[in-house]
């Protein structure tokens, strides 16, 4: 799975994807409607939008955990049928297996792909060193702090060398400082890895600071893409100072102006 052979084919492409859920009352509810999204290999794309706008649905369709009701999800040219084998997923919630040690959690993906135990453990140790958890391989997840659990999740997702990384508000549960550290580490690992990233967040700062492109979704239900912004800030970026960059401020003002409208709609709908 080299990414050079497919450099011009989108890693993820959603064509007019709609997801409809049947409500318990027998009615129907559109989470997203007519979503178009193209993510090229090596690109970092963030999806932002007000709460309840179906951001996770978009990610789940790209992951193959959810099939679109209409439209098509493609990955590297092939339709996504079942789980997308070229993607890893970092969930918003804790998804580490609590009964496995850090080492076993990280090596799980390799073990399930048939890699030998020793080899998988060696590779897992390499990744744990990379995310700064070398001394914690025998711990169980509950013995780790929130930031350490996220690091473990990163190692777990990256060890299988996916071409696509799907991240659903991975750092939203962390405190601000830990979060910035994690964002920096994520960029370090991602830089020049050639992997496509779809990053979901409700934090516009985070989205702009990390991404090549920010996709703005409208308020739900039946949310759709309202705008896309290319983030041309040079890389490598220093996340600790980027927020003072005049171009950052400019982009933030522009996108926030639009996002604010959508957020206002969400609240208006709730109040109604």
């Amino acid at each position: 799975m080299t990414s050079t052979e497919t450099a011009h084919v989108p890693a993820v492409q959603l064509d007019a994807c709609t997801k409809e859920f049947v409500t318990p009352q027998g009615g129907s509810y559109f989470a997203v409607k007519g979503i178009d999204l193209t993510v090229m290999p090596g690109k970092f794309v963030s999806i932002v939008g007000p709460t309840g706008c179906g951001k996770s649905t978009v990610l789940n369709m790209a992951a193959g955990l959810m099939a679109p009701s209409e439209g098509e999800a493609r990955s590297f040219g092939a339709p996504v049928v079942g789980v997308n084998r070229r993607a890893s997923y970092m969930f918003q919630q804790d998804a580490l297996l609590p009964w496995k040690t850090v080492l076993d959690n990280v090596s799980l993906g390799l073990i399930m792909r048939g890699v030998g135990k020793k080899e998988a453990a060696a590779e897992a140790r390499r990744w744990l060193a990379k995310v700064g958890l070398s001394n914690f391989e025998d711990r169980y997840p509950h013995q780790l702090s929130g930031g350490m659990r996220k690091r473990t999740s990163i190692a777990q997702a990256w060890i299988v060398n996916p071409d696509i990384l799907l991240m659903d508000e991975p750092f939203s549960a962390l405190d601000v400082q830990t979060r910035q550290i994690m964002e920096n580490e994520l960029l370090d690992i991602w830089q020049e890895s050639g992997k496509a990233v779809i990053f979901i967040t409700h934090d516009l700062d985070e989205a702009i600071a990390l991404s090549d492109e920010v996709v703005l979704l409208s308020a739900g239900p039946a949310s759709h893409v309202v705008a896309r912004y290319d983030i041309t800030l040079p890389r490598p970026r220093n996340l600790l100072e980027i927020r003072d960059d005049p171009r950052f401020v400019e982009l933030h003002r522009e996108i926030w102006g639009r996002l604010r409208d959508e957020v206002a709609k969400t609240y208006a709908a709730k109040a109604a």
Partner: protein
Amino acid sequence: MSTTTTRAHAASAASAASAPRTPRRGSAHSRSETPATLMRVYQLLLTALVLGAWEILGRAGIIDTFFFSLPSAIGEAVWDWIVTGFIFPHLWITLQEALYAFIIGTGLGLVLGFLLARVRFLERLFEPFVQMFNALPRVVLAPIFLLWFGLGIESKVAFGVTLVFFIVFFNVLQGVKSVDKVLLDNARMLGATERHLIQHVVLPSALTWIFSSLHISVGFAIVGAVVGEYLGAAAGVGYVIAQAQGVFDTEGVFAGMFILMIVVLFVDLGVNRIERYLLRWRPVPGA
């Protein structure tokens, strides 16, 4: 996860083994609390007080020793049974019955619980029948098992199985069904096949439920053996108690009770150890 709460189906009328366990003391709040060793001393004093009062009141004729015997006489009987070796074959039989009941009941509960949890059709099909059999007071099955399997250990094992099975069954059913969806999705994204999912996610998740009911099912296995023996047998501690009762030997009844109590206590300690080892990944409550 709600693994610390007692299971709904587990204990209704259980044995001593299923009594709620006292939470382990955290080191954080030991300031105003009596130290553990001192508490042991108090406990011994309390025991001495109760037994002493019993003994004195019995000797003074205030308590009828025909019905309540005397602690010293009970102690003598226990000692006698131990030094003559009289009780050991009986104890061995009882423990064997309990062990078989535990293994078979757990096995059946695991397999059927797993099957029904995974196949929605079967779950819906069997639901009323499962409820019916669970509602049945299990003691009434003892006579029919005696008819079917005779006075040997088979009838007691069968009886114990009916007790153990439902506890394990309900826990597995619940455990398998309540597997965290995010854990499943995560494993799927990491490349898990159905077999992998069961091996790495579903079974370990369900096992926590089974282990947390281990105390209760072990206790029930022993209850099954003893009650079965009591109702009709040729050997076992329950049989010894029934025999003693038949000749108005109150000391024998109490001695049998005492020995069972001690044995179950030790079994429970063993279970504690196993549980602590197997669930070592779980956070210690209050830590």
